[in-house]
């Protein structure tokens, strides 16, 4: 529960890259923009103050005579003439006694004017005051209130520039991060798909392609090397497994399936036959005098005889029939599907006949051998594997008791019509 939740909270590579790019871009633009705007505002306010002083000076020259003659109308006119053309919000002229001689005020209102006033108040040394001199005497003074329009426009422009640059750099950051993401994720995706194929489908033949990024390429190469090893290991393991499986289900001496394999196959075949109403025959074989051969001629000869018997057995069977070594000198044959009882008896006959030829030993000697065969039919002699085996076993012992080297059909209550044993 916990790990999955954690995983869902983890940011993707894309979001990490995007955020990193965006942060860098915003930081750069913000720092540059703010510092430039601040510097600009500072420089501009210095110039604006200086400009205000210059305007005051020029007004003082112009109204000097009017102040000397205490001429309010002339002063007002001169004041309006200069102030209206400059960035001045308000201008006053006072005479020597401190009385206001002339006053001019810019007649605009509205949001911009209000903002201008605020900006001017914040950034300009207000009001700019300058004495009016005439013959080295102060005859009056001028007070100027700046308008701050250019400052405001500069600040608004700066702000707009910052915003514009921010948007642009955000877009650029998005684009760059997407490109970088592509460069990084493409090889990673290739790696992931190869890893996925290797894990799910055990297909070790795919390899990670080369990439431009050195670390990822190295990772891919290592991964490929790992895949090579895995492939070798896997094939080795598979062959090992096959060998082991074969060994588990087969007899090492004769190469025939063993008892476990045979029983499994038998019960499967019984199930199939039951559902499809098929007939089968189970042959139980036992080598005659095998113990004697083993005891007198040695185990090596016994083994040779067993191998030979197995070979001959196999040679007599059809493609779908199964022969297995149940243990010692006991063999079993499963005939399926079976058309008629006669077929089974025919095969039993052939088997018995095939054993008539003496077994040629490696040492050059030959040993005579024979088998006794017990036949049990499904479903007549047993409806389940165990009873079928028992019936065949019993029939084999019967054959052994009567005549070794012959076959015998099981004789159970269910066998409708016991057939005479024939040679």
């Amino acid at each position: 529960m916990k790990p999955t939740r954690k995983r869902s909270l983890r940011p993707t590579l894309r979001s990490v890259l995007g955020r990193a790019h965006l942060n860098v871009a915003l930081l750069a633009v913000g720092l540059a923009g703010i510092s430039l705007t601040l510097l600009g505002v500072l420089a501009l306010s210095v110039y604006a103050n200086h400009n205000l002083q210059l305007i005051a000076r020029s007004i003082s020259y112009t109204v000097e005579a009017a102040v000397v003659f205490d001429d309010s109308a002339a002063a007002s006119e001169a004041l309006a003439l200069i102030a209206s053309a400059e960035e001045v919000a308000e201008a006053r002229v006072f005479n020597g006694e401190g009385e206001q001689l002339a006053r001019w005020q810019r007649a605009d209102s509205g949001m911009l004017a209000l903002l201008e006033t605020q900006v001017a108040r914040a950034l300009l040394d207000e009001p700019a005051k300058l004495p009016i001199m005439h013959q080295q005497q102060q005859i009056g003074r001028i007070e100027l209130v700046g308008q701050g329009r250019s400052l405001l426009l500069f600040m608004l422009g700066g702000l707009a520039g910052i915003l514009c640059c921010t948007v642009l750099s955000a877009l650029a950051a998005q684009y760059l991060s997407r490109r970088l993401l592509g460069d990084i994720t493409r090889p990673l995706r290739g790696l992931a798909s190869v890893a996925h194929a290797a894990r799910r489908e055990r297909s070790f033949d795919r390899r990670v392609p080369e990439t431009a990024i050195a670390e990822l390429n190295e990772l891919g190469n290592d991964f490929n090397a790992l895949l090579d090893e895995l492939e070798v290991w896997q094939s080795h393991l598979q062959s090992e497994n096959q060998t082991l499986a074969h060994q588990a289900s087969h007899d090492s001496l004769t190469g025939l399936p063993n008892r476990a394999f045979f029983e499994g196959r038998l019960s499967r075949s019984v199930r199939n036959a039951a559902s499809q109403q098929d007939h089968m025959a189970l042959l139980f074989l036992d080598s005659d005098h095998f113990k004697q051969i083993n005891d007198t001629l040695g185990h090596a000869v016994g083994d040779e005889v067993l191998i030979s018997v197995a070979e001959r057995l196999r040679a007599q069977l059809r493609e779908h029939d199964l022969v297995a070594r149940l243990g010692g000198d006991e063999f079993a044959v499963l005939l399926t599907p079976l058309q008629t009882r006669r077929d089974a008896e025919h095969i039993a006959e052939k088997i018995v006949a095939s054993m008539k030829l003496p077994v040629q030993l490696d040492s050059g000697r030959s040993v005579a051998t024979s088998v006794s065969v017990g036949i049990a039919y499904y479903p007549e002699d047993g409806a389940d594997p165990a009873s079928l085996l028992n019936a065949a076993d019993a029939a084999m012992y019967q054959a052994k008791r009567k005549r070794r080297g012959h076959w015998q059909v099981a004789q159970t209550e269910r066998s409708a019509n016991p057939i005479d044993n024939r040679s």
Partner: protein
Amino acid sequence: MHVAARRVTSCAVSLLLAVLFIATGPARADTATTNAQAQQRAKAVTQVVLGIFSYARWPVEPSPLRLCLVGPTEYADDLIKGQVQESGRPLQVKRLLADDSQVAQACDAIYIGKLDQRQRDKLFERVSGYPVLSISESNDPCTIGSLFCLRVSDQQVAFEVNLDSVARSGVRIHPSVLQLSRRRAVQP
């Protein structure tokens, strides 16, 4: 001859008027209410006269500046107290008779009160060719004679400039003063 005769008659008329004015004017104006006004005007006149002096440049800068009051003046009471100009140049004020022959040599500036036409002509004849700054107090058309003509009212003391006279006198007047006077002439 005709011109001379006409001038004589006009002089006589103006003299008559002046006599009438002098006889009746003060009698009417000399009331308590106008006293303060008169003082105010005198102060304003002083300011304007000193202002004009401050914008005037003589060929040789006089020190002290000798101002002569000629004829009966109405607003020169403050001037005559004698004072130091704003520039620090001392001002020497004295009264002269209208027919004083030394007027051109004794004065750098003359403040002209009420004179009849003959006296005015005589006065201007004497000072012509000398760098003398003349200011008329009385209402004068300001076409001939004085460099400056005052227009005294309760609100303001204005003045006009006679550019021909300024050019002839040799006293240089700062252009801003000329501008101020011209604007005033246009304004009404």
